């Protein structure tokens, strides 16, 4: 048993990190109609780069390089592999399947490199904790909340205030009308992929930090938990992805914190909880929490 406040803080931290990944899913889906199944291996790629570079560059330098490199990899993936041939929204399904192939290739190579190791990312928080009244919380969790909040706010500001954000939202509503206004669809799309890649690399840091033991080859599978979060939110809605992620994070933390009370559900129900929540929400709102009109894309 842990206190409710502990669980809430943990859930918030988890949800914040899921939100980084879920926003990546959403921004890619909005821009290209593609569901990027390679998001998990992009995350692992970013984490791996941070892990191997932090000795030489320091944590901040390694993270900066990893974020940039992952953004470039994601952008290149879209531009060179997916955007081949005529631009055609009907190709989104095919491209989605291509991302599964990319995921397998990337994951296989990274798994070979990582092997059974647990890699440290060299983050500055270590295993230190702070005690606030009755609550003890890891520094890394607080950092996850703070950094994610800043990153998420930055992404929302990009959507709202930049020409790219306006182009993205316009193109998501009506590709041809946006093209007629002079929106460069392929560039808008590629930048969306870059953003998703950068967010994934950032998320990797907090998924590998304490209390997790480090980066392992299965860390990328965490992205699969952000997937129900994105779907919960309606898939094309950034606020929806944020709400869905927090819901998933809190659920997971609460279920894990009360594991002993929930043993009728079996061991490890915390891992299944995100999907259970997704199914429950979709039963009530088939288009997701914020998906009333956004889901009409494709």
């Amino acid at each position, binding site marked *: 048993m842990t206190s409710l406040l502990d669980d809430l803080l943990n859930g918030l931290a988890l949800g914040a990190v899921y939100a980084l990944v879920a926003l990546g899913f959403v921004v890619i889906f909005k821009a290209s109609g593609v569901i990027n199944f390679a998001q998990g291996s992009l995350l692992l790629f970013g984490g791996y780069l941070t892990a191997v570079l932090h000795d030489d560059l320091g944590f901040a330098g390694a993270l900066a390089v990893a974020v940039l490199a992952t953004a470039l990899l994601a952008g290149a993936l879209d531009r060179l592999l997916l955007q081949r041939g005529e631009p055609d929204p009907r190709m989104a399904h095919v491209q989605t399947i291509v991302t599964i192939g990319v995921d397998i290739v990337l994951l296989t190579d990274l798994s070979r490199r990582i092997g059974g190791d647990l890699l440290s990312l060299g983050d500055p928080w270590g295993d230190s904790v702070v005690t606030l009244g009755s609550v003890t919380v890891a520094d890394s969790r607080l950092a996850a909340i703070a950094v994610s909040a800043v990153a998420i706010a930055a992404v929302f500001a990009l959507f709202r205030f930049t020409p790219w954000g306006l182009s993205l939202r*316009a193109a998501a509503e009506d590709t041809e009308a946006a093209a007629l206004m002079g929106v*460069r669809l392929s560039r808008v799309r590629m930048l969306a992929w870059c953003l998703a890649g950068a967010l994934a690399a950032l998320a990797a840091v907090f998924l590998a930090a304490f209390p997790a033991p480090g980066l392992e080859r299965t860390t990328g599978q965490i992205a699969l938990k952000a997937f129900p979060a994105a779907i919960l939110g309606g898939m094309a809605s950034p606020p929806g992805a944020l709400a869905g992620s927090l819901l998933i994070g809190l659920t997971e933390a609460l279920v894990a914190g009360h594991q002993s009370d929930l043993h009728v559900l079996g061991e490890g129900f915390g891992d299944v909880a995100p999907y259970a929540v997704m199914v429950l929400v979709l039963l009530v709102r088939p288009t997701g929490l914020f998906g009333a009109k956004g889901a009409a894309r494709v």
Partner: protein
Amino acid sequence: MPEAPPDERPALHVEHLDVTYGRALSALRDVSLTVPPGGVVALLGANGAGKTTLLRAVSGTLRLHRGAITAGRVRYGDTSLDGRDPVAAVRAGVVQVPEGRRVFAGLTVDENLRTGGLGLARRKPSQVAEARDRVFALFPRLAERTRQAAGLLSGGEQQMLAIGRALMAHPRLLLLDEPSLGLAPLMVDRIADVVREINAQGTAVLLVEQNAGMALSLADHAHVLEVGEIRLSGPAAELARTDAVRRLYLGDTTEGAA
């Protein structure tokens, strides 16, 4: 851009244009027409005649429909527009208002207007504000609803927004695809007035319409497109008097019956 001297405004030349969809379906054959600077040219024809296809060939959106120019040329002044992307057309000053309005329903009126300048190279906020003021002068109704979602506007207001959005890019040639479609007669008159005013301010117009009465009243010159080929061309007033046009497009059954 605004600093271009008005006397050197280019003309649109479409020369012997053939367009094919999916490498098989021929949509336009040997179509030629010219829109002089500051002129209004109407393109009439039934559904499926190829009117929209011609606009797509000019605005560079054929590719989005798996269409391609297989012969002929599209020039705007010295700029070749065939096979270019829509950005090239917008930068050259040729902007299309799509059929069915196609405003971005989930974006606000103000955001819709801002999308109108997205194709242009970096613009100062003052230039954007100036363009917006011009649109609001033309459509005061939009000025009252800047924060409203475009999807909540009436059909007529959406058409105004679609035209206003295109005007944000400072077009020298406006391509209008069926602006009267689905509008009440009063609103059609209102849109016609607006097109007249836009033209009076120096913007050339290529007007695609099924509403031939409206189109011929606005245009200097008109062409009739039938199954992908130009059948009739001439000054609008003259075309309006020909039997074929009266019968087929102006709904006049008395005179052509013999």
